[in-house]
């Protein structure tokens, strides 16, 4: 699971959970895979992100590096910054571990990089 996906994931499908965001990460296995840098995509995706969540998620698995804690105003022209964002968003992958719902504490297992979001009948 990439941190970009984590930034979009919630546990609001659980019964009794309203926001379910952000999910906590317990990472046991992390892999860094290089992918092609596409500045256009990173530029388009940044306004959609919750930056605090991204930074905290990256920090909690020890991959925040020197990513700025807050977004600066003219990040559009800062290629170095975009490359760092690209690295954190798309190159750091959690292979094994757990996602934790902030409200109910329900754990979603991550196996081979695939979070299991299946719910039991009584959780709907």
């Amino acid at each position, binding site marked *: *699971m*990439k941190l*970009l*996906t984590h*930034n*979009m*994931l*919630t*546990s*609001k*499908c659980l019964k009794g959970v309203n926001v*379910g*965001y952000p999910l906590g990460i317990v990472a046991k296995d992390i892999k860094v895979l290089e*992918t092609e840098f*596409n500045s*256009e*995509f990173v530029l*388009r*995706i940044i306004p*959609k992100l*919750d930056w605090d969540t991204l930074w905290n998620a990256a920090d909690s698995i020890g991959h925040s590096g020197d990513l700025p804690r807050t977004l600066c105003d003219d990040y559009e022209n800062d290629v170095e910054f975009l490359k760092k964002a690209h690295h954190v968003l*798309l190159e750091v992958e959690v292979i094994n571990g757990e996602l934790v719902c902030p409200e109910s504490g329900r754990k979603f297992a991550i196996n*081979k*990089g*695939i*979070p*299991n*979001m*299946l*719910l039991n*009948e009584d959780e*709907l």
Partner: protein
Amino acid sequence: MSRPEHQAPPELFYNENEAKKYTQNSRMIDIQVQMSERAIELLALPDDEPHFLLDLGCGSGLSGSVLEDQGHRWVGFDISSAMLDVALEREVEGDLLLGDLGQGLPFRAGAFDGAVSISALQWLCNADKTSHHPTKRLYKFFSSLYSCLSRTARAVFQFYPENSDQMELMTTQAMKAGFFGGVVVDYPNSTKAKKFFLVLMCGGAAPLPKAMVEAEEEERISYSSKRDQLKKMRGKPLKRSKEWILEKKERRRRQGKPTKSDTKYTGRKRSGRF
């Protein structure tokens, strides 16, 4: 062959054996790729921009690979872990999630620029467990999808409806969830090439995209209708005339009744000598 939905729930039907077909059977792959390309065309994304898309029922990631080829990033969602394992083997670029569409999508509001789904929606019409209620599951799915798409986004579903009731059930639930749109049927006159696409739009009503038809097919239709028109203009042949007799014999032959063959004497007046 009976429909896969009737055989077993999706998480059991798409086991290792079935999943293998999607990497080895080139015909299956071709069809999946073609349908994915058409679905992306129907998404009508602005050109040359990379988008963040959702692939619902991504399976082994064949449709995702088509998205990658067009420069988009994607997140795949599927209920069969065997199919997702195949996707991992194929080393697709998209991120994968294991989940049930009928339980709702676990995403933040406005996360995606669009969604595609190839041959997955019909599975939601099944009640595989006693607690499953297809109408409720469809509504939950569509309403959660509506919230996780951005304002101008579209969602395109290729699906195999079993009957018109199913199609109506799907469209009503989608409209109830706030979507605009409807079903586009490609090649409606062909049994094999006929494909159903449910095109849903978030931002207000817009005209549905045009369905594809075979060029030849169109010609054939106009030709036969022209022939019918000519026939109508001529009217029925005069009773007991030669044309009338020939037509009647032709009809009997078509019905498989014993009929004398046509000769130069057929329908000819007898000479006065008789």
